[in-house]
């Protein structure tokens, strides 16, 4: 039984492979989407517990995808942590207004720190639910 189901929306294959490997090793179920449209589709069909969302994405960027998620009942409450590049403060700010939980700049954090962030959030939520 997996700890939780994550959706990783990231267009770079190298990073997808790295984060997927890390999360799988740590006992998570991981779904992957390589662009915003696929991300939106999987957010709806896979019903993940948490989405790790990049901002700069093909087809539909992270912010636009997030907005669409917030406009449909199935995904309106799905928690989102932003996994961004440096220099995207404006988009990050917009996402916070839409209710993003936190953001991490990919270059500044190690995969372990991403896992820690996810773990902390899930633990907090579990505590709230109990």
């Amino acid at each position: 039984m997996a700890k939780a189901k994550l959706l990783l929306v990231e267009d770079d294959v190298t990073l997808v492979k790295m984060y997927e490997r890390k999360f799988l090793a740590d006992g998570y179920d991981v779904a992957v989407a390589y662009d915003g449209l696929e991300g939106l589709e999987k957010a709806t069909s896979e019903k993940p517990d948490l989405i790790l969302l990049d901002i700069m994405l093909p087809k539909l960027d992270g912010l636009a995808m997030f907005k669409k998620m917030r406009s449909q009942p199935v995904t309106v409450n799905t928690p989102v942590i932003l996994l961004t590049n440096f220099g995207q403060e404006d988009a990050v700010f917009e996402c916070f207004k839409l209710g993003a939980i936190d953001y991490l700049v990919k270059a500044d954090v190690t995969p372990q720190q991403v896992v820690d962030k996810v773990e902390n959030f899930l633990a907090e939520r579990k505590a709230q639910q109990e």
Partner: protein
Amino acid sequence: MDGQDNKVVLDSLYEISKIAAEAHDLESLWEPLIKTVVKALALDAGTIMTLEGDKMIRRTAVGMPEHMMKELPISAREGGVSWGVVKTRQPTVITDLKTSQIASKILAQGGFHSLITVPMITHDQILGVISFFNFKPRQFSQKDIDLISTVANQAAIAIASIRSTELLIDNRKKMAELSALNELSRSISTVFNFEETLSSILALIVRMLRGDRGVITLFNHQDKLLHSVKPAYKLTDEQITDLRMRSDEGITGQAFCKGVPQLESEIDTETGKVLSRAGIDGVKSLIAAPLKVKSQTLGVIHVMSKNPHNFTNDDLRLFAILSSQAAVVVNSSYMYQEIEEEHKKDSALLSSIGEGVLACDQDQKIILLNSEGENILGFLEEETLGKSVKDMLKFTDKHEFPLSEDKLPVNKVLSSGQPETLQEVYLSNRHGENFPAWVSCAAIRDSVDKVIGAIVVFRNISKDLEVEQMKRELVSIATHELRTPITGIKGYLDMILQGDTGRVNPETKEMIEEVVKINQRLADLVDDLLNVGRIEEGRIQIKPVPMDLGKLVSEVIKELSIQAKDKGLELKSEIGNSDDKYKVKADPERVRQVLINLIGNAIKYTAAGKVEIALEKKEGKVFCHVKDTGYGISPEEQKKLFAKFYRVKTDKTRTITGTGLGLWITKKLVEMMGGEIRVSSVEGKGSDFCFSSPTV
């Protein structure tokens, strides 16, 4: 011709050529010319009409009723004696005006009985007519007709040369107008062909004086010699090249120095030497006259003969007359050449400019378009001349709306006199295609500073914009394509170090940690480059908010304490529990970047001792000092310290890595937030970097 007639001819020709040589403008030419002939030939009245396009305009009337000068220009349709002469190019004589069908009735009413009208022709071009009248019936003899025709043709040459001179002088005044030169070279060649005119004058003179050869020598101000020039009459090119003399040498020298014509019935030794130097043989007699215009002597004109004693004293007089005619032509030609040269220089300059240049007069009529301008707009200069700037430079804004009248640069410049630069505008070419343009416009002023036109410099900046776009794309590539692999390397190395793949032996661990550091260097470099790009393109947005600088300093110190500890340095601040004491208006993220850069540098460049941060509030600002006990910076290095890519290189700092961008970025960020940064340092003792930030 008998003696008496000959004298009359010479006298009047001499008078006329003097008038022509001395006339400053055409107005001062007409009347004396008519008066001289009227007097010489015992006539009662005379008039000159010039041909201007399809109209004949009366220039002067001597001895005629006043109202004749007030009549309107006569068009070809109206006919009359004068138009008849223009068409046939032949003199017309009417002995009894009362019976004439074509002569104007006014003439007969004015009491005139006879008339002679001759065309003024030079170089096959008819410039107008001269008419003379007698109250009494007069039979004009063939000699009269010949004489008056000669006078008329002499007048024609004078008119043509004065016109071209006037044109030259006029345009000289308007030299500021770049187009003047352009126009000039076009119009002058249609008005006057110097070389051919000079050549025909020379031929005429040689024939009239029964000579065999003729040549003009001109004074050269550089070598102070007289050099013969083309066109010459019956001399070879080699002889022309070799015929030159000192300005006091031989008969030429005498004519030049004394300013009066000289006659040599037999060639003297000195003149003989000059001629033999040039390989001119068989000259037995020679006549030379100075070419004088106003008070200046330009050179000397010669006629040579193979017969001794060929020239008489009468010839000498006639020669004086004819040479003054030649002088006028030579002078105009001189000025023309000078202006032509300036024109060539200017047009070479204009065509070598890599930008479009267009000039217009105060009525916005185009007077010049350079070749790059032709390329950009797709029009040839000739197609644009005289057209309105508004029809050729069609401006639109970025929404493709035509610019309103008050925004058109030429309008603005002509009314204000102030230069204008336009960006983010579009111009369209001949095919109606719009392109982004950079446009600069400035006034053209005359010698008294009055605005007489405008000059527009323009460039198609499609390529520049493409390059800008590429630059932005490159930055984006740097973000994605460089940063992502670096992030990947960092992530995997960390996973290995974390033991995700099993235990790592100490030696491997050490090496991987080294790779992590190298990778971090790459990451820092990419970050710095990105920051530089963002600052230079103005893409960094500063969002100043009220914030506590003291609190931020404490946070950054905490963050960097590990680095300091690793080097055994003391890192501390003298802020204490300030609680809002150091409130500033700044962008917290950027101030953080500044602090990390400055404190990070202090740690990097200090081998032992401490790094200390102090805050100070004064003059409406908070000053933040980052002091260290490090290597210090020499005064010369301090000057260059904030330059892009500059790094202090000494034996001690050689092993310290960095991009040379940190302080440049720091300075820019501080300035963008309304502060300043400076450094004081003593080599071997340490440095103090201080930046300010405005308080709330």
